[in-house]
């Protein structure tokens, strides 16, 4: 399997604090992977390094074999990476449809002159963006809410709209930062199926940050665990669940030894 995203030795520091430390990560094409870890483990910082919001001090990030670390966020998006945010960050005063149309921006070429003189290019661009946005609205189940201002949409709809906006740029890799934060188990289940469908029907590689273990264990093919900016474990859901270092990171040392004890007791 070829990898779509490779991070090598990525380090990001804020003053004296090392938020991400010598991180290596490989994301296989067309996979669903997760990054988990306790609060402050450096997961979102890592996302920000990938999307160009931060430039890492050391190491390199390659996407489809091109280096993307140090590029600007808009350049990274043009290459085919798109993201959502932990705390929803929609363009609150634009309509749902306009939000998605903004996401479609990398595929538009209309310039100042085209816009003022309504050239052929303007009409083609607008038509394409408009149709594409309507399609995505239906895809995420928001048909009929397109003219609503984003901030007036219910919470779950806002989450889905944010994903639709991220999909508008037609990414190869989609980064989802806690897509189920604040959702009830029912909605979480729906989101889980939705994410799976994204990969299966659109062939988009997905990298998640998530705290909901049911979701992580349910859909991830590969899980990487971060703690204090370092990767402490990696593997499939089963391996991760029984990894003592992971349990220690989440629940403390005592829990880890106890857990090991129960595990070995079960074995014998």
């Amino acid at each position, binding site marked *: 399997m070829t990898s779509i995203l490779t991070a090598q030795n990525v380090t990001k520091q804020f003053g004296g604090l090392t938020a991400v430390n010598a991180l290596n990560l490989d994301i296989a094409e067309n996979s669903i992977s997760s990054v988990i870890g306790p609060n402050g483990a450096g997961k979102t910082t890592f996302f920000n390094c990938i999307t160009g919001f931060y430039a890492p001090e050391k190491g390199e990030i390659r996407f489809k074999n091109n280096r993307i670390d140090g590029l600007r966020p*808009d350049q990274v998006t043009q290459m085919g990476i798109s993201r959502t945010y932990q705390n929803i*960050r929609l363009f609150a005063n*634009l309509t749902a449809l*306009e939000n998605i149309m903004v996401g479609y*921006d990398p595929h538009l070429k209309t310039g100042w002159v085209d816009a003022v003189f309504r050239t052929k290019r303007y009409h083609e661009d607008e038509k394409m963006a408009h149709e594409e946005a309507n399609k995505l609205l239906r895809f995420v189940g928001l048909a009929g809410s397109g003219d609503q*201002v984003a901030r007036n949409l219910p919470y779950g709809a806002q989450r889905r709209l944010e994903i639709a906006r991220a999909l508008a740029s037609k990414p190869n890799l989609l980064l989802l930062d806690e897509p189920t934060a604040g959702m009830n188990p029912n909605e979480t289940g729906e989101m889980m199926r939705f994410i799976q469908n994204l990969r299966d029907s659109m062939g988009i590689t997905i990298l998640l940050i998530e705290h909901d273990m049911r979701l992580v264990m349910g859909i991830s093919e590969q899980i990487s665990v971060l703690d204090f900016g370092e990767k402490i474990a990696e593997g499939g859901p089963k391996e991760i669940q029984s990894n003592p270092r992971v349990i220690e990171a989440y629940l403390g040392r005592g829990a880890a030894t106890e857990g090991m004890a129960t595990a070995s007791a079960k074995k014998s």
Partner: protein
Amino acid sequence: MNQFNWSNAVRLGLIAGIIGVLIALVGMVETFDERDIVASTLAMSWTMLFITILVAAYMSASNQTSNLLGVAGSTITGFIFSLVMCVLVFIVETFDIRQTFVNASPTLVDILTFERGMPGGFIYLIGTGTIVGALGGGIYILPEKIRRALILGFGVITFVGLMEDIIRVPMRDFPTVSDALSWMFGRGSESGLSILGATVVFVLVAGGNYLWGENQSKINASVQKMPETRQRSLRILGYGLLILVVLYLPVVLGLYLTEVVNVTGLFILMGLGLNIVVGFAGLLDLGYVAFYALGAYIIGVLTNLSGELTLALGWNYWLALPLALFGAVLFGIVLGIPVLNMRGDYLAIVTLGFGEIIRIMALSDYLKPHIGGSQGIVNIPPPEFLGVLLNKPQTLYYLIVAGCLLALFISQRLRDSRLGRSWKAMREDEDVAQAMGINLVATKLLAFATGAAFSGLSGSILAIKLGTIYPHSFALLISINVLALIIVGGLGSIPGVFVGALLLAAMPELLREFSEYRLLIYGALLVVMMQVRPEGFWPEETHKREFHEATQEAK
């Protein structure tokens, strides 16, 4: 049993009373006592006090739980107001406070007590206040349609009374109209509407509004029912009428009013530009006057004939205009580059600095040989267009209208394009906009450049309008005014720019008699507006587009 909200009624009465005392002590009551809205019946001074009571009483009524309690509440509010005014009268009569409050004069007491003095006048004062308060409550409990008609009717009477000169003076050139209007206004030295005029205006406005409210949906429906071609010709007729009015306006308005329109037009032009920078793109620019100055100065340097400057090229305006616009755009980009990474307050402070730098450079001795220093540039010749010399307000008007239409056209088209969406996305959340693939550098610079071009155009017209330009014409206050007008109109709203310019540029010109109190009223209005309608008078509309496609398919 519904509870009567005493504290609310009393509080509103006290607030209204304090406002009344303020109006009296700053001298507005005395100054405007001779200025009648309705001749020898209702003076401007009392109108202001009445409006204060009515607004407070209306609010008081709306805070009670039933209609009856509402009227009771508003009556009490009116009563408390008059008590406060009585206290004022008592203090003015008993103690000599004219040392501090120049306007606390016997005349003030006479006006407030209806020339009855203490204590008899108190009865009149309290009676009037209470009755007006009750009226305010009465207006509140009326059905909405009637209420709206009444408020509009009284509003228009006040407005027409205020604008008497402005309505009458231009009509002097049209004797028939002037004669026809003479019954409307008071005779001889009296100012204001005549009682008959006021009644007719009120009946026409209030009745018209009421009927329109009753039949609006019917009229709309019948227009909707018309065949497409009829609707279209109706629309063309409407636009045709509008164009005729716009073209004919300076002929009707005469010199002074056309001048007011021109000044407003220059502000609209700047407002449209700043609306792109601040309203669409969310880049708070406080140095916007810099581009206005630049447009004016480039025209000045290139076209002047004075011979005192090193560069007295004596170019034609039309030749210099593209250069002025180009200069403004270039400067917009040059100023834009250093502030690309700044946001919010920091951006505002740096652009504020830029605006001042331009003004101080224009003042400097170093550049004096080139641009005239504090003496400015004189002798800027008016341009000619198709044989017409654009040297008076009535001809310049057309140039300004053309400029505004161009700016309006460009604004609207940009707003509805990819660029407009990128600007708005950037305004909402810069980081996310960038993460969505928007090139922030290009998008920001295009906003600065477009805004600068409109402002430069405005400045270039100013140069030929005045014929002389001084650094003092480009003070910080212009930037602030333009910003205030787009905020009052509604940030990001194109029609809002027109509303804002009308309120903040045209009205102060028209209400010259208030000139002493202009800034006071201006400030108070802004504060009230920000409280009551923070989104502006004509807020930005969201576009309904989702089913656009579907309806087309259905056809």
